[in-house]
C-alpha cells in the first residue's frame, strides 16, 4: 500500500488532533451509547468540516450494523473514511478514551451504588434526552433517502418490523440492500 494510505489524507496534524478531540468530548456526552451522538458526528464531519459526504457517513453506519460486533465500530469506519488508519486511530481513541477511563475508575469505586440519589437522578433526568437524541440520529440518517420514495418507505417499515416481530434486524438490512440494488433506493 502507498505511503499516502498511512498518511494524513490531506488533513494537517492539527486537524487530526481536532478530530480526536471532538470525539473525546462526544465520548463523555454520549449517554445511551455512541449512536446517540451520531447526528452530531454527522454535523461535524459532513456539515462543518466537509471531510466526508452524507452517503459515506450513512454507508459507515450501515456497514457496521450489518457486521457482527459492537455497533461502536461505525466510529472506526468514520475515522477510516476521513483519514485512513490514522483517522481510525483518532476517532476510536477519542470516543473510547475518556469514557473508558471514567468507567475504570467508577468500576473500582465499589461505593458507586446505583440506588444512590445522584446516580438515580442521572438516569431519570437524562432518559428523555437519550430518546430525543435517538430520534435525531434516525432523522439525520433518513435524510439522504428523501428523494427516493422506496428508500423512505424502508424507514417506517423497518421500525414496524422491529416493534412487531422478534426477528433479527439482519433480515431488514438484507431487504434494504435488495431494494437498493434493484434501483428502488
Amino acid at each position, binding site marked *: 500500500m502507498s505511503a499516502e494510505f498511512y498518511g494524513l489524507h490531506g488533513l494537517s496534524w492539527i486537524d487530526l488532533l481536532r478530530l480526536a478531540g471532538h470525539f473525546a468530548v462526544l465520548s463523555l456526552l454520549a449517554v445511551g451509547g455512541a449512536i446517540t451522538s451520531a447526528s452530531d458526528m454527522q454535523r461535524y464531519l459532513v456539515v462543518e468540516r466537509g471531510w466526508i459526504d452524507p452517503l459515506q457517513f450513512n454507508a459507515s453506519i450501515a456497514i457496521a450494523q450489518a457486521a457482527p460486533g459492537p455497533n461502536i465500530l461505525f466510529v472506526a469506519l468514520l475515522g477510516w473514511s476521513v483519514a485512513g488508519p490514522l483517522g481510525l486511530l483518532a476517532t476510536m481513541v477519542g470516543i473510547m478514551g475518556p469514557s473508558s477511563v471514567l468507567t475504570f475508575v467508577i468500576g473500582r469505586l465499589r461505593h458507586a451504588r446505583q440506588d444512590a440519589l445522584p446516580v438515580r437522578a442521572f438516569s*431519570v433526568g437524562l432518559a428523555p434526552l437519550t430518546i430525543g437524541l435517538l430520534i435525531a440520529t434516525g432523522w439525520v440518517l433518513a435524510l439522504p433517502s428523501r428523494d427516493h420514495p422506496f428508500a423512505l418507505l424502508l424507514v417506517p417499515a423497518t421500525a414496524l418490523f422491529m416493534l412487531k416481530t422478534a426477528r433479527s434486524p439482519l433480515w431488514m438490512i438484507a431487504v434494504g440492500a435488495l431494494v437498493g440494488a434493484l434501483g428502488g433506493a
Partner: protein
Amino acid sequence: MTAASVAEPELRQPRSKTELFTAFTWLALQGFGGVLAVAQRELVERLRWLNKEQFVELLSLSQVLPGPNIINLALMFGDRHFGWRGAVVATGGLLAAPLVIVLVLAALYAQFSSVPQVAGALRGMGAVAAGLVLSTALKLAPTLRRNAMGLWPSVAMMVVSAAAIGWLRWPLAWVVLGLGAAGYAWAWYRLSTTDSST
C-alpha cells in the same frame, strides 16, 4: 427443570487472560445488531462467570456511565478478574476481530461503490439503519410514562432535544450540558421530594 429443586449452579471464573479474550471475541462475533443479548447468554448461561444479579448490576452501572454499554461491561468485568490488563484484554477481545471484518467490508464497498447497484444497496441499508435507530427510540419512549420527572416535562425534553440536534443541528455539547443539567436538577428535586414523603 424445576427452579425450586435445582440449586444455583456454582459460578466459575475465567482461568486466564487468553480465555477472557477468546470468550469476548466469541460473543462479539455472534452479536449481529447489538452484543448485549449475546453477552447475557454467554457470560451468565454458558460460561457461568456471573449470576443474573451480578450481570444486571454490572449492566446498570454500564448504562449510567457514558460510552458503549457492552464495552463498559467488558472493561469492568476484565478489571475485576485480572486488573487493568484484564480490562484491556476483554475490551480488545470485543473489538479486534469485528474491526477486521468491518474494515474488509468497507474496503469491498470502496472498491465497488461506483457500481450503481452497490451504491443503491448501501443507500437502502442506510434507510434501514435509520429505521432501526428510530425503533429503539419508539421502544424506549413508553418508559417516559413512569419517569419520576412527570410525563409532560419528559416528553417536552425529548422533543426539544430531538429538534435541537436533528433539525436545528446545534452542537451536542451545548444541548447535553444545557438540557441535561436542567433534567438532572429537576429529577434530583422530584426524587428527593418523593423519597422524603415515603
